[in-house]
């Protein structure tokens, strides 16, 4: 796990994203080392999700670069970035509600397939083989997240916690090198959160790198190798979790200073 510790998987350089006059993310430098779990924390509106959206190509940055495995992926489309190996989940679950759980996972395998229109209509040998492979991988993936019994159930019908897992499973099915999770534990009960922590730790052992936005401090302290704190679009602190926990700047960002309260 640690032999490649110094290898940087993802790096952002002076990343800036503005919405009108508002700088959602300013001059953001972020480094993600291979095989680690990095948490991005900060108060609401700090720009965490915007960083995720820029990294995964949903927004185009106004300035700066996103380097993934030594390649500048800034300006690439989201589906191209997925093919390169960054998969994500969303803050509010975004599944394909009227498709079965298995089909949801199979959607993740889409970018690893090649069959075109003609091959699909005429069911060529290669296409059949590919379909079989996609199905097999997807079923394994469902088993991994513990949802194999809901295989043929519509995604909208399974419980909230299972939907969260299904979304992570769908991201895993794209065979990512970097998994980007936006608040995976929100809405989960303490027991489910613990299961999630164990699950993510197991994933990292399999040479996956995880970048995570999290509010639940217990989860953050439980899994992070490194924590980056953002406030008002800027990075204000970073370090190992125990150090961040007692950083005065972080406490200030979360709780505010006394003078600030006076001015308000």
């Amino acid at each position, binding site marked *: 796990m640690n032999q490649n510790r110094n290898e940087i998987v993802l790096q952002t350089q002076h990343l800036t994203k503005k919405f009108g006059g508002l700088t959602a993310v300013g001059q953001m430098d972020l480094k993600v080392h291979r095989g680690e779990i990095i948490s991005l924390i900060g108060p609401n509106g700090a720009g965490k999700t915007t960083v995720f959206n820029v990294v995964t190509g949903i927004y185009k940055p106004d300035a700066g670069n996103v380097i993934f495995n030594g390649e500048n992926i800034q300006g690439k489309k989201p589906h191209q970035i997925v093919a390169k190996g960054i998969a994500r989940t969303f803050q509010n679950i975004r599944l394909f*509600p*009227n498709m079965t759980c298995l089909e949801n996972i199979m*959607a993740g395998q889409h970018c690893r*397939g090649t069959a075109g229109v003609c091959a699909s*209509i005429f069911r060529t040998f290669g296409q059949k083989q590919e379909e079989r492979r996609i199905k097999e991988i997807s079923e394994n993936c469902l088993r991994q997240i513990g949802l194999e019994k809901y295989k*043929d159930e519509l995604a909208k019908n399974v419980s909230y916690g299972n939907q969260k897992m299904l979304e992570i499973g769908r991201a895993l099915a794209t065979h990512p090198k970097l998994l980007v999770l936006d608040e995976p534990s929100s809405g989960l009960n303490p027991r489910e959160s613990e299961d999630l922590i164990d699950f993510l730790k197991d994933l990292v052992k399999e040479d996956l790198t995880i970048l995570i936005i999290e509010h639940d401090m217990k989860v953050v302290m439980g899994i992070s190798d490194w924590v980056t704190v953002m406030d008002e679009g800027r990075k204000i602190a970073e370090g190992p979790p125990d150090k961040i926990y007692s950083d005065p700047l972080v406490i200030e960002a979360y709780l505010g200073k006394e003078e600030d309260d006076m001015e308000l």
Partner: protein
Amino acid sequence: MKNNTSFKSVRKLTTDKIWLLVVLVLFFVYPFMVSNYYIDVAFFFGIYALLGLSLNIVLGEVGLFDLGHAAFYAIGAYTTAILNTRFGIPIIVLLPVSAFAAGLFAYVVCSPVIHLKGDYLCIVTIGMGEIVRLALLNNPFDLTGGPNGVFGIDFPSFGIFEIDSSIKFYFLIWVVVALGIIGLIQLQHSRIGRAWNCIREDEIAAEANGIDVRYYKLLAFVLGAALAGVAGNIYASKLMIVSPESFSFMESCMLFCIVLIGGMGSIPGVVIGAAAISLFPEIFRPFAMYRMLIFGLVMILMMIFRPGGIWPRKRGVI
């Protein structure tokens, strides 16, 4: 448990097969039992089924509101009509040509607007449908014959076997519909069909999971248009005349209704929807005055009590 499910699926398969057999027998017996008029009714049912299936790719599978689908139908019909009457190219050769022309037209027209969402795309397609109809009406380059249209189109023929009677046209259209259905079922159960459905369900999630949304939306439009072009080709050679009023906005609305009534993304649903739309006027011929009234009422009741359509697509075991 496993044995039980496989037993169930076997039983399901046999009942499906029995139904298929019944439909096939009816299909072959029907034209020999009724007059030419009712064979033609079944022919137009076939045309609407084909058009419904073509719109179903765009509207049903991908969820793109296309209220100008008659334009692609028109491009197919006019391509056939013009090339056949001017250059004497056989209809059967023009079948793929019409499909290609309609597909190409869809590609050119839709690629700049494909990023539009929902009702915005809907407005653009209405505009496209009207522009095509008005262009045909205005007789550009003396090609389309204006309001009179183009007439004197040949019958299709395979060598010496000419399709020249109602009964032969009936078989032609339904063979094409059957081939279309087989192709579309294959597509539904492939990564392409799944990608389309993902886009319909959640476009952003689809893009974020590695599906090239733009490509698959355009693909749906091109394939849908090509299939409508095929319908246009057969329609033109059956009627031997094409004129702009056959491709009005009302026609696009009818196709939209076929997909909505039948069930979005459901192939049997769309065929039933086409039956409802094309056979309805025949059944209610005695009440011709109240036809649209009843039709409107049925639509409203449908949307209240069966919003998913008559035969919604069942998802499950793949």
